[in-house]
């Protein structure tokens, strides 16, 4: 889980793009995904997202993410099937005409699942091909968000893996004292998790204090900042941003004409 949102170092066109254009692309994918509910449109969108991952040479690294998303997608489909009442019954989930699966529900579920995958993947590709520092830089310098908040947010992300590792250690430490973390009883389990959460909070506070000292002694917030390498905006970036805009306008137009929308 922790490695899901990590930067993957590769030499690729996608990596060399300006974070701004990648962010625009991800937002564009989100817009298109929300504009349509036709599965074929959405599948086309998803395949372009996968193509970008391929171009960025990070497809393999996203395998675990893909697996997780597929499970989640499956759950989405199942929920639709159970709760959405359609007319055209295809088959029954359980024998004895229990839980009918309708074509409409299946279609809706699939559309939702594909949409979700396209959106989530595009943002993960953005994170996997863009260094944190460049994200910080673009958010603060170009989008004018306050540096302190952006930095805190990104640092929190940076400490997620550390935090997870600590959580494992704490769980171990409680387990060896006979604490039933691995018990099947849900009530006991909740109680047991409190024994993990408390030390974890205390440890994190201590770590945060160290981090604060480390930042303070290295001039954090001391005045005018400079930036080591500002990612340039190239012709390619302009093209990416421009074509994203064109696609969005096109999508709006198609949508208003009634394309790509299925009425159920």
């Amino acid at each position: 889980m922790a490695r899901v949102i990590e930067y993957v170092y590769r030499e690729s066109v996608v990596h060399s793009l300006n974070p701004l254009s990648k962010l625009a692309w991800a937002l564009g994918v989100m817009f298109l995904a929300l504009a349509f509910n036709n599965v074929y449109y959405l599948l086309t969108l998803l395949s372009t997202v996968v193509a970008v991952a391929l171009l960025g040479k990070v497809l393999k690294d996203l395998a675990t993410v893909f697996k997780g998303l597929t499970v989640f997608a499956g759950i989405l489909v199942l929920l639709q099937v159970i709760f959405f009442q359609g007319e055209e019954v295809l088959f029954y989930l359980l024998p004895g005409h229990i839980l009918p699966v309708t074509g409409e529900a299946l279609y809706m579920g699939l559309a939702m699942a594909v949409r979700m995958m396209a959106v989530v993947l595009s943002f993960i590709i953005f994170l996997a091909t863009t260094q944190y520092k460049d994200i910080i830089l673009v958010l603060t310098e170009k989008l004018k968000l306050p540096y302190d908040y952006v930095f805190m947010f990104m640092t929190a992300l940076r400490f997620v893996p550390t935090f997870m590792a600590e959580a494992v250690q704490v769980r171990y430490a409680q387990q060896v004292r006979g604490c039933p973390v691995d018990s099947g009883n849900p009530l006991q389990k909740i109680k047991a998790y409190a024994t993990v959460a408390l030390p974890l909070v205390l440890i994190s506070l201590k770590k945060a204090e160290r981090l604060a000292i480390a930042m303070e002694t290295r001039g954090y917030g001391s005045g005018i900042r400079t930036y080591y390498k500002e990612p340039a905006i190239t012709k390619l970036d302009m093209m990416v941003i421009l074509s994203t805009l064109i696609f969005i306008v096109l999508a709006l137009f198609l949508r208003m004409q009634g394309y790509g929308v299925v009425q159920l």
Partner: protein
Amino acid sequence: MTAAAEPVVCFKRFSYRYPNTDFYALKDINLTLPKGSFIGFTGPTGAGKTTLIKSINGIIPHVEGGACSGQVLLKGCPTGNLSTAEIGRLVGTVLDDPEAQIICLDVEQELVFGLENYGVPPDEMEQRITTALSSVGISHLRHRSTRSLSGGQKQRLAIAAALALLPEVLVLDEPTSELDPLGTEEVFTVLKQLNVKHGITVLVAEQKTELLARHCDQLVILSQGEVALAGTPREVFKHKSIYHLGVALPQVTELALRLNGGRCHLPITLEEGIEFCRALVPGGGGKLCNRSLT
């Protein structure tokens, strides 16, 4: 202490009490730490080592709060009159936990962090990064993720990150306490080099007295917030009260003290220990004691 070099850090009747406590963590400290020296601080837990380090890098009084009296002077200027950022240009800090003090995800960025904060012009950064990395011997790790580093490498990165800001003083709070013997050796070798080659003043709190004996020009032993002993390691180890201060002596020193109560030139390193024993044993060929009888 030696009066030759100009003092870079100077404690003048400095006392400090943490917030919400009623005892002094440091009591009436008077110390003059000369430029270019390598000084070790040791003493039992709670003796005030960490507090002393924090008083030099400005965390006390600027971040911790609490109450202090007296002064800590950095090149003659009281720390109270400087901001932590200003102090940070002069004093680089390394903490004990290699994990918690690394701020960024990759090695290069860790160095860039401080440089950007201080508004160093971008075209100057390249030079500083290369120099800092090579002086701690991790140039080859420049593009690595910080998480993939060993403990010793992480601590050397922390030192490099401090060095990139061109400090005159490095303060380190038990930088090897979480490291294995290999990592410990890496860190101290680097510190010694920085001290000898680049004239950086190294102030290090450390429990491992064998290391301190080998590397320090001066040793300060703290006890219950006060300076109990100060001087060259040999002078300090020779002192009678050392046994009551909860400081482990290097084994060769302990051996010599046990054998003849420190009446001759006291060995503090392995090499000196060998010479010492040669002089003791008939036919050992040692002539050390004849030379430096006290």
